[in-house]
């Protein structure tokens, strides 16, 4: 009885420790606008939106082992839903949001059938091709998409008469959505589905052998990931009040992959990676047109020096700084189950 109580205490303490970093992080993000100019707040919103994109992509790449080079398609679906509905119909935020999410879900359903049997490079190529088709439509079908000029005339977002388009208010709306996505993806990462997805990544054969319909698990992961990415796209369109073909370009997908690789880890890593890549894009882009080259070099450096990303780096640093605390935690955990230890000893004697 006391065992289960202390075990609960340990797990609560462990869980509490894991909560500290996100709470501090989001707390800082909530406070920081007071120290920033409007332009900087605008940039921070853009970075957070890219963070949503990176987190969504990581569900596919990090959890599911499905490296997609076409994730911009879903981000673009959200953004273009807003752009098209504003440009042609002057629709409001709520409708644009719903259409954006639904369009991404539908596209993911279709693309999901195309990549059912595809793995590795084939998966990269098919997703790239699918997104390029829509990038082509965005640039060429001028009557609808206004081509390279893009779609403008997106009015300030409002819902039930509440206008939240001012830079600071919009920043907080974005922050709340980011926090929501963060919580949702953290929940998914701990859920049976999240683990099965990682199981599929590690060993499809094994998952089939325990009765998992691998194809459908992968398909659902793509749809969830696409819907979250499109949420980022919708926020992007209202942030910039403009949507151009660039959101659908392969470089957007590539930036997302870089953010995921840079961040590493489960949910927080890709978010941080997205923030960093979003910042770099803005800073480097303002000095030079060779933005892609710089990011390419960064990609190579990450692959060589940070194979587990920033999250991996943080973990190693944490382990070096607090080895004693870790050891203490492990000791407590082990002390919790003396019953099991006895069973194992008997087992051992039996074998010997």
């Amino acid at each position, binding site marked *: 009885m006391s065992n289960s109580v202390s075990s609960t205490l340990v797990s609560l303490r462990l869980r509490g420790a894991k909560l500290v970093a996100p709470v501090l992080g989001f707390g800082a993000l909530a406070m920081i606008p007071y120290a920033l100019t409007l332009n900087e707040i605008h940039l921070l919103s853009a970075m957070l939106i890219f963070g949503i994109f990176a987190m969504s992509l990581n569900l596919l790449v990090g959890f599911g082992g499905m490296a997609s080079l076409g994730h911009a398609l879903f981000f673009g679906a959200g953004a273009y839903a807003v752009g098209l509905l504003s440009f042609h119909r002057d629709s409001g935020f709520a409708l644009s949001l719903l259409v954006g999410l639904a369009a991404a879900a539908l596209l993911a359903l279709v693309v999901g059938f195309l990549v059912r049997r595809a793995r590795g490079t084939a998966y990269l190529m098919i997703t790239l091709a699918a997104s390029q088709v829509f990038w082509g439509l965005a640039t060429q079908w001028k009557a609808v998409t206004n081509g390279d000029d893009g779609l403008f005339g997106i009015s300030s977002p409002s819902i039930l008469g509440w206008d939240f388009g001012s830079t600071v208010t919009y920043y907080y709306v974005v922050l709340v959505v980011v926090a929501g996505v963060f919580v949702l993806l953290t*929940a*998914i990462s*701990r*859920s*049976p*589905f*999240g*683990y*099965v997805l*990682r*199981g599929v*990544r*590690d*060993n499809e*054969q*094994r*998952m*089939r*052998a*325990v*009765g*998992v*319909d*691998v194809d459908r*698990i992968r398909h*659902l992961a793509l749809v*969830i990931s696409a819907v979250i990415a499109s949420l980022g796209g919708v926020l992007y369109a209202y942030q910039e009040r403009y949507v151009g073909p660039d959101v659908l370009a392969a470089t957007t997908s590539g930036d997302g992959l870089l953010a995921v690789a840079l961040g590493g880890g489960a949910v927080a890593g890709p978010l941080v990676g997205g923030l960093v890549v979003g910042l770099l894009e803005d800073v480097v882009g303002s000095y030079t047109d060779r933005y892609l080259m710089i990011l390419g070099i960064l990609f190579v450096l990450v692959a060589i020096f940070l194979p587990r990303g920033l999250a991996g780096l943080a973990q190693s640093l944490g382990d070096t700084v607090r080895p004693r605390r870790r050891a203490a935690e492990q000791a407590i*955990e082990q002390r919790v189950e003396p019953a*099991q*230890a006895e*069973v*194992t000893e008997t*087992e*051992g004697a*039996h*074998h010997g």
Partner: protein
Amino acid sequence: MAEPVLEVSGLSKSFGGISVLSDVGFSVARGERRGIIGPNGAGKTTLFNVLSGYLPADAGTVRLCGSDVTTLPAHRRARMGLGRTFQIVALCDELTVEENVLLGLVASNRGEWRLLGSLRGRRGLVERSRELLSEAGLIDLREHKVKAIAYGHRRVLEIVMALTSRARVLLLDEPAAGLSGEESLRMIPLLERLDRDLTIVLIEHDMDVMFNTVDRLLVLDHGTILLEGTPEEVRSSDLVRERYLGTQHAAGAGS
């Protein structure tokens, strides 16, 4: 004889014109331990892959507990009670030992679609996984990532994984492959302790493991059944000695 749970008839499979299985038929009764032996390339693993749905059959039928499963995909057969292990260990390397077991358990309850609620917080599953891991002697390793545990332990976990589903028939593909002599001897009590209601089909080159475990043997050669019988009958068969056991023992004497 108890009712058959696995019935195979007229099973054939060829790869690019090369026949790997031709007209294979046999049936295994409930609770029976059936061994399959034969030289390399006899078609043993291919037979397992066709039985479990990893490869489609060219001809013939596979019946599991009375229903025809010949065209069902692997995961459907698994849900109907067909568990299997792989010759090359197939585990989730980046997850811990316990997480692997929990995955198997959650899938057997059709829980893999739950997006909310913690997998590791599901009391019933955790208890069952600790039971299974204790029985298999892996309990101390439960928090280790699979990629960090010894090969012999992975072999044992491979069997535990097959037990996580509500398997009624277990196909074990060389459970002792790559193990040292001592390690493979430890595999014997593990196999003996398995529920007597469980039907087991075993491929194994280690004859100590094989003759200690099975009730009946099936000898495959070039994709056809050479002989079916008790271990004694097989051991005393001149044909088998000449084609398989003789060369195997001679070749395997050093190992």
